């Protein structure tokens, strides 16, 4: 087989072996490269194991030095920074395939946006008995505080990152929607930049669609929805602070967009208008790209113990004086139990058939479904509804008896906090292992969509790969790595950057915080009178 000769070889056995039934995206079942991947495989062979190992070494050094690290560990264990593991083999998507993904995503995101609006206003989808109200009301991210508020431009899901997987039949399926604060775009952009520096030879035979206009797309969308009548809107990126695992991305986006990176103590609401504190006094902010959960944004309306929040922000938002991206309360749309209804939403709100399929999902809150799920725990994936990042997920076929027994107890105790899904046969892609050889690993895809005046999706997205053999968990917080994702320029021009969105400022230097600033802005709860009530002196009967 010619491809085997071309592939890096350690010894006679070290050939690339796809793992049927899983689909491999670069190689056919017999190990020959797919047509679009031929030149890439040849270029990889040219580099050889030694070349790939050497490039990997340079990559780690660069990522460490630039602080492109990700915190791992999680749970209660210790966390530590490590270079975000980017694999050197790009993932290649054809233009036509991408077009269909893109249309499917835009359709889905439009429907999700409708759903959020509906839930906080007329609830038509509930009245039509398509989505049960109790399901919505029991979502942990259902935000009663923003009931009846319609954000500027009617856009809620400004940034969406839906997770897609490719089934063994080649079809793409949505496995999860992320319309709160999806993260990862900085890695997409950094990966591309790093690839171009580390292994430029791989690009030689390809025309790869550019992605570096993402920050401008985002800035354009934020300006488009910002309620600023008179002048150019002031946009800020709001980070919880340097301790946040995604802080790197917050600083990156602020720098790339040329806007301030603010923390809660920089912001103040006066007379329902949001301001930031500058050395010239208060300056109005019109749009906030917030990277902080609903729960923490405004201690007056959400969690009262939040010190990360800006009291009064919801007032400013309700008064229409500030755009918040993503809008508050979008968590109802990416709830894992609500996910099951997204295809219905597309039919209901848009009158279209879904382009992208869902993975079959079971809601154990229904006693009959629960019974079915309990009977098939070893075949299903069970996920908690209120979590993200792969926490609490049990993969039936990989779980031992203890884990399954534990899951059974949890399901019986609170069936409405879990969903079950069929196991998806995630496709594989080759990654470079420690010896510089190519081995197949499972992969998913998180494209990033920006919704301002229209929906734009940067070509490709974050491809997350499981770094352990056979593992289906790709979350970066759980040891996954990433890949540069190429969408090839082959005729379909729909992704070409449109007319320039807006003039861009030269990057002002964003900023981080530490130390005693917050302590100096001591925020206190107004004492609340307890409802002590009254007891009638003589109970009347």
């Amino acid at each position, binding site marked *: 087989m010619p491809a085997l000769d071309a592939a890096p070889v350690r010894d006679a056995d070290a050939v690339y072996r796809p793992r049927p039934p899983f689909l491999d995206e670069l190689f056919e079942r017999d190990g020959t490269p797919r047509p679009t991947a031929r030149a890439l495989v040849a270029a990889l062979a040219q580099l050889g194991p030694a070349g790939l190992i050497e490039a990997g070494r340079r990559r780690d050094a660069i990522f460490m030095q630039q602080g492109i690290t990700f915190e791992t560990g999680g749970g209660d264990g210790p966390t530590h920074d490590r270079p975000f593991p980017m694999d050197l083999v790009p993932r290649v998507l054809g233009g036509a395939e991408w077009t269909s993904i893109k249309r499917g995503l835009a359709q889905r995101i439009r429907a999700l946006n409708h759903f959020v609006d509906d839930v906080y206003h007329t609830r038509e989808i509930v009245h039509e008995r398509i989505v049960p109200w109790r399901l919505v009301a029991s979502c942990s991210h259902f935000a009663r505080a923003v009931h009846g508020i319609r954000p500027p431009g009617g856009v809620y899901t400004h940034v969406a990152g839906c997770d897609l997987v490719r089934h063994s039949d080649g079809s793409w399926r949505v496995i999860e929607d992320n319309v709160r604060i999806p993260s990862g775009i900085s890695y997409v952009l950094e990966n591309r930049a790093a690839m171009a520096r580390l292994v430029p030879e791989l690009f030689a035979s390809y025309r790869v669609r550019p992605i570096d206009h993402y920050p401008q797309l985002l800035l354009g969308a934020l300006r488009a929805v910002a309620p600023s009548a008179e002048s150019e809107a002031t946009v800020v990126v709001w980070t919880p602070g340097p301790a946040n695992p995604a802080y790197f991305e917050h600083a990156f986006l602020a720098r790339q967009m040329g806007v301030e990176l603010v923390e809660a103590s920089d912001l103040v*609401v006066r007379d329902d208008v949001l301001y930031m504190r500058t050395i010239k006094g208060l300056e109005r902010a019109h749009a906030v790209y917030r990277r902080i959960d609903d729960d923490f944004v405004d201690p007056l309306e959400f969690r009262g113990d939040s010190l990360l929040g800006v009291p009064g922000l919801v007032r400013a938002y309700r008064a229409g004086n500030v755009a918040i991206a993503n809008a508050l309360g979008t968590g109802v749309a990416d709830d894992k139990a609500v996910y099951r209804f997204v295809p219905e939403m597309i039919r209901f709100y848009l009158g279209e058939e879904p382009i992208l399929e869902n993975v079959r999902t079971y809601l154990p809150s229904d006693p009959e479904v629960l019974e079915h799920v309990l009977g098939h725990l070893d075949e299903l994936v069970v996920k908690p509804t209120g979590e993200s990042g792969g926490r609490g997920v049990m993969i039936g076929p990989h779980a031992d008896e203890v884990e399954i027994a534990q899951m059974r107890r949890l399901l019986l105790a609170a069936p409405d906090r879990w969903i079950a899904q069929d196991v998806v046969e995630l496709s594989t892609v080759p990654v470079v292992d420690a010896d510089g050889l190519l081995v197949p690993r499972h992969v998913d895809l998180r494209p990033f969509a920006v919704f301002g005046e229209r929906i734009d999706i940067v070509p490709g997205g974050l491809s997350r790969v499981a770094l352990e053999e056979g593992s289906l968990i790709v979350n970066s917080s759980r040891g996954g790595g990433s890949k540069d994702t190429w969408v090839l320029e082959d005729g379909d021009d729909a992704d070409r950057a449109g007319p320039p969105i807006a003039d861009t400022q030269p990057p002002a230097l964003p900023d981080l915080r530490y130390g005693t600033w917050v302590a100096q802005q001591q925020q206190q709860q107004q004492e609340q009178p307890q*409802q*002590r009530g009254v007891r009638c002196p*003589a*109970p*009347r009967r």
Partner: protein
Amino acid sequence: MHFAIRFLTEYHYDAPVTDNLNSLRVRPATTSTQRCDEFHTRIEPEARIARHLDYFGTEVIEFGVPTPHDHLTIDVRARVVTSNQPDPREGSWESLRSASYTDAAGEFALPWQDQPTIAGLEDLEAAISAETPLKTLERLCQVIPERFEYRPGATYVGSGVDELLRKKAGVCQDFAHLSLVLLRRMGIAARYVSGYLWAAPDDAASDSLEVDTHAWVEALLPDADEGGEPQWVSVDPTNRRLADSSHVKIGHGRFYADVAPVKGLFIGGATSTLSAAVTLSLLDPQSGAKP
């Protein structure tokens, strides 16, 4: 009954504070058994007031004092006419499962989230359980005040039901919360009600009373007829009875935090002293207002 209500809240800070943002849920609701005729709010230092209806339909009054100040006065006056609620109907337990009941109950039938399993609830549940939901409600009003002492100071504003069960004492807020937990466990939708109560004995000479804000619950009871509309029934477990025209409702929610009368935040290192007083005056229903 016809009431004049004055709700006066004063905060004194021992050092100047700024950016004092507050939201009030103090305006009596207008319902089928109650009408709010007049309502005024005065804030000192002066502040711009914004109003909106929240998710549960309660009017929220919002204001903020940005500049340094060392006191805050919230002075609310209202005039309300109330009447007794209609007699509740005697629906069956089975009707709790009907679609019309489930629809009307909505989220108020959901188990109280994040409420840990508390020892002692089964006992109470057994004690109040009766042939019909209405009878259960009536038992609830007897059992809770029998088993728990009404004692201001036993709990605080943030206390949970577990604390009431442990201390065997609490105030109306705790009694209401416990009622909600019990009723929802039994499948009866229930919600927390915040309001004012005219608590004078029948023979009282005075027509004016100083009270605190009060809390009770509304439970959704099915109609006696199959297919009839279920009905929210107001019940006051602190005072061992169904609510009546001496209860003035402000609003309802899932629990206290949804209808807390005053919520606020300020910036500054000061400690504050709070004084809050509710004065209810009975106005002659015939001649209208009294001075």
